[in-house]
């Protein structure tokens, strides 16, 4: 019988298709009985989805000025 620590690790492996038949069955059985791990599993796949959506931002004018100032300071020190 799997414990929750093992079950949550298997959830991660299953998402990546890296789980054999026996482990898949043990995991299903655990998830059937354990609502916490069931929630973990749902939340884990939501996180996968959100991670892909996340877009990087750009630099503000202020940050650009700071970078320029630091770079110039370092250059003139040498």
């Amino acid at each position, binding site marked *: 019988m799997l*414990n*929750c*620590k*093992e079950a*949550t*690790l298997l959830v*991660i*492996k299953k998402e*990546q298709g890296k789980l054999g038949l026996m482990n898949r069955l043990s995991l299903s059985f655990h998830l059937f009985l354990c609502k*916490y*791990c069931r*929630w*973990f599993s*749902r*939340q*884990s796949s*939501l*996180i*996968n*989805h*959100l*991670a*892909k*959506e*996340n877009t*990087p*931002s*750009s*630099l503000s004018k202020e*940050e*650009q000025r*700071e*970078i*320029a100032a*630091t*770079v*110039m300071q*370092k*250059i*003139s020190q*040498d």
Partner: protein
Amino acid sequence: MNARANEVVKYWIEEFSNGMYAYALARLRHPANARDILQETFIAAWKSYESYNAKASEKTWLYAILKNKIADSYRKKSRQPEELTGDNAWFDEAGRWIPGSFPSPWRGTDALINKKEFHQIFEDCLQKLTGRSREAFILKYIEDQEPAFICKELDISTSNYWVLLHRSKLALRSCLEKHWFQKKMEHAEL
């Protein structure tokens, strides 16, 4: 010499810094680190500017330096000992959830995708991940890299790969719950 440097660096920052920042941020996922890397890149670029011979475009040349700096920072990080916030933050010795770390059901997840504030929380939580857990998470879930590539990049074994991803998921999940879902519930009750 300084006046010339000033002129050149200003030009680089105006022309290329936003694109280079986005590139660095996508890999490092940490705004402060991405800005530091950018500074190091421009300093290194100025130092070797004399040997730059316009065979490659200035942009290609700057990106090559940036890529090297990012690769260096990965290598430095994987040599640092990993801080072990550990799995025992979530589970007891028998591998059961510790009371207080029990996941709770998340409500209203369908509406999240377009929510700006939520994405900010997501980003903040991502930044709270430490060391190689964060690198592993970014490479896998944001950049969608192959496990073999990630193990090589971070210099880790396959079993470490799973441990790091497991840990990063547990930490991120718990952070999102604390800073978003629990707050939402408090608001709903008021």
